């Protein structure tokens, strides 16, 4: 996993609440058995005017010029500004894969759906919760100022505006540690393999019907 320490980047404002993972990456692209190749189909139904199919040459498709990510001023954006309950719905990890591959490193919103929030950390994508008022201030600034950039510092847990105003955000210590160091959490868990084995022995004794039935 790619580590995340500090990041400064162009902000794209996606002013919709309850953006679901079907919107982030539609189902027809989930048939892939790979982890890559989803970036060109991020927000497919909003970005393009036709119906996208897997293995298509996306450069030939008609673009929805109204959609925020298609506007020239937001090209190269790496900070996504979103509204409440971002990433609700399906558990598909293809959603953070698509966002990351498109070029986003962080998403700032008043709230995230639980599974999406969790999946993002596994893929070097930092979801940041700020208050609704703070997010709305950022929306106003990002829309008003072309080339608007924010700086995110995970170690310090801060988001800094171009005018120097700083917001702080909360993040779990474990997730922060993994993301700062780009750690594989399977490897970390396996450091406790002995403990898991011990637990299993006692647990099996107490609940024998949970073992070997399949």
């Amino acid at each position, binding site marked *: 996993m790619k580590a995340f320490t500090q990041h400064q980047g162009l902000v794209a404002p996606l*002013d*919709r*609440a*309850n953006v679901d993972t*079907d*919107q982030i990456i*539609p*189902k*027809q692209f*989930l*048939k*892939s*058995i*790979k*982890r890559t190749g989803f970036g060109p189909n991020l927000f497919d*139904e909003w970005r393009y005017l036709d*119906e996208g199919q897997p*293995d298509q040459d996306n450069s030939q498709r008609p673009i929805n010029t109204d959609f925020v990510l298609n506007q020239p001023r937001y090209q190269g954006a790496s900070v996504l500004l979103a*509204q*409440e*309950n971002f990433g*609700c*719905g*399906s*558990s*598909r*990890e293809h959603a953070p894969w698509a966002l990351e591959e498109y070029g986003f490193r962080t998403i700032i919103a008043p*709230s*995230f*759906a*639980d*599974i999406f929030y*969790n*999946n993002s950390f*596994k893929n070097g994508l930092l979801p940041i919760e700020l208050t609704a008022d703070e997010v709305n201030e950022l929306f106003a600034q990002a829309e008003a100022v072309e080339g608007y950039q924010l700086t995110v510092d995970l170690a310090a847990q801060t988001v800094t505006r171009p005018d120097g105003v700083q917001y702080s955000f909360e993040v*779990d*210590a*474990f997730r922060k*540690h993994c993301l700062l160091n780009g750690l*594989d*959490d*399977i490897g970390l*868990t*396996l450091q*406790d*393999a002995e*403990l*898991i084995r011990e*637990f*299993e022995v006692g*647990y099996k004794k*107490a*609940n*024998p*019907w*949970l*073992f*070997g*039935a*399949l």
Partner: protein
Amino acid sequence: MAGKTLYDKLWEMHEVKRRDDGSSLIYIDRHILHEVTSPQAFEGLRLAGRKPWRIDANIATPDHNVPTTKKERDGGIAAIADNVSRIQVQTLDDNCDEYGILQFKMNDVRQGIVHVIGPEQGATLPGMTVVCGDSHTSTHGAFAALAHGIGTSEVEHVLATQCLVAKKMKNMQVRVEGKVPAGVTAKDIVLAIIGKIGTAGGNGHALEFAGSAIRELSMEGRMTLCNMSIEAGARVGMVAVDQKTIDYVEGRPYAPKGADWDAAVAAWQDLVSDADAHFDTIVEMRAEDIIPQVSWGTSPEMVLPVDANVPDPEKESDPTKRDSITRALKYMGLTANQAITDIKVDRVFIGSCTNSRIEDLRAAAAVAKGRKVASNVIQALVVPGSGLVKKQAEEEGLDKIFLEAGFEWREPGCSMCLAMNPDKLGSGEHCASTSNRNFEGRQGNGGRTHLVSPAMAAAAAVKGHFVDVRELMNEGA
């Protein structure tokens, strides 16, 4: 000290280690796999040179993109017309064969939707932790299991370590007291709950459904309820154990037997929240107030009683909500204040992990019996949740009722719930659907989904528009 909630108990039973940073290692009893979210996990395992920790904790079946027409199914995997779907189903086969994981293959009679077959086979048991790379894993919470959806990285994590890294959530209780009116189902109850608390209402919470109206529900009704807790934002939904739970599990193929059964039943008695347990959030509703529900918009919280009119954005003061309503009305092709019963339907879908079990099919068949699908309805699909549900329905003659009424009777799978297979809506088409998500494009690019109960879907099919199913029940067949 306050007592424990069901969630507190399940959490403590499975906590292997509490780390200094506040996260915990949680032991996983049952891991269910399907073709869409597992291939990258197996690949990751291979690349890291790791092996599955405990093969007998895993069970698999293909469901999301299997075709549902008999013709395409009869040819086996090789006959799946969609090239990418075929590779994905084949990859699940290959992975399960390689590691010796129990799989109900595409044309096994036990194949079906992951959240139907787990309980059906007794592979889901009370007190278990159950995970699957699918958000509707909350379904299994109907058995007082701690069950939730996970992403593909976590699928790999569970395969490799039999554990998940998790942080304890808050406790939420939704209490529905009283008796629902006749014709009102678990689906209507859960849609009404989502309408009340919103699609983010349960974020960060494990949700326990309680109250006399919940206890009154059958196990299948409770599965419908827990299935959609994720649509209220709660990745975990649960119902406490009672005699119905135990009766449902007894005798299932993978349920414990003999002395194990007796010991298990004794242990399961404790899978209830203590009377003095503390919940961080409590929501109370009266069952008598719930009537059949129909979603009108593009989020499950955009749902109303069938006798209501769709909202008017002009009457909404919050600008974000007003924008959402305006956008949803436009996408759905509806006008403000339009009566729900004036919405015509183009297609009908009865199926999905929410509503494809035998009681669902019986409820729909009871409405379809002796009636015909309306002429404006292009297609009405009935897709059983598993091969065994299909077989049971055929033994009861439900297939004939549906076919005579003009419905199509299909092979089991997820089908039009998410339209990964060929079953999908055309752009602009309205669908009365027993599934769980009415997101933009969910059932097909440009498709317009209205979430309803199986009986309400059948009623919409025969009338050609939404109608209170209780009117049909009163007029008789």
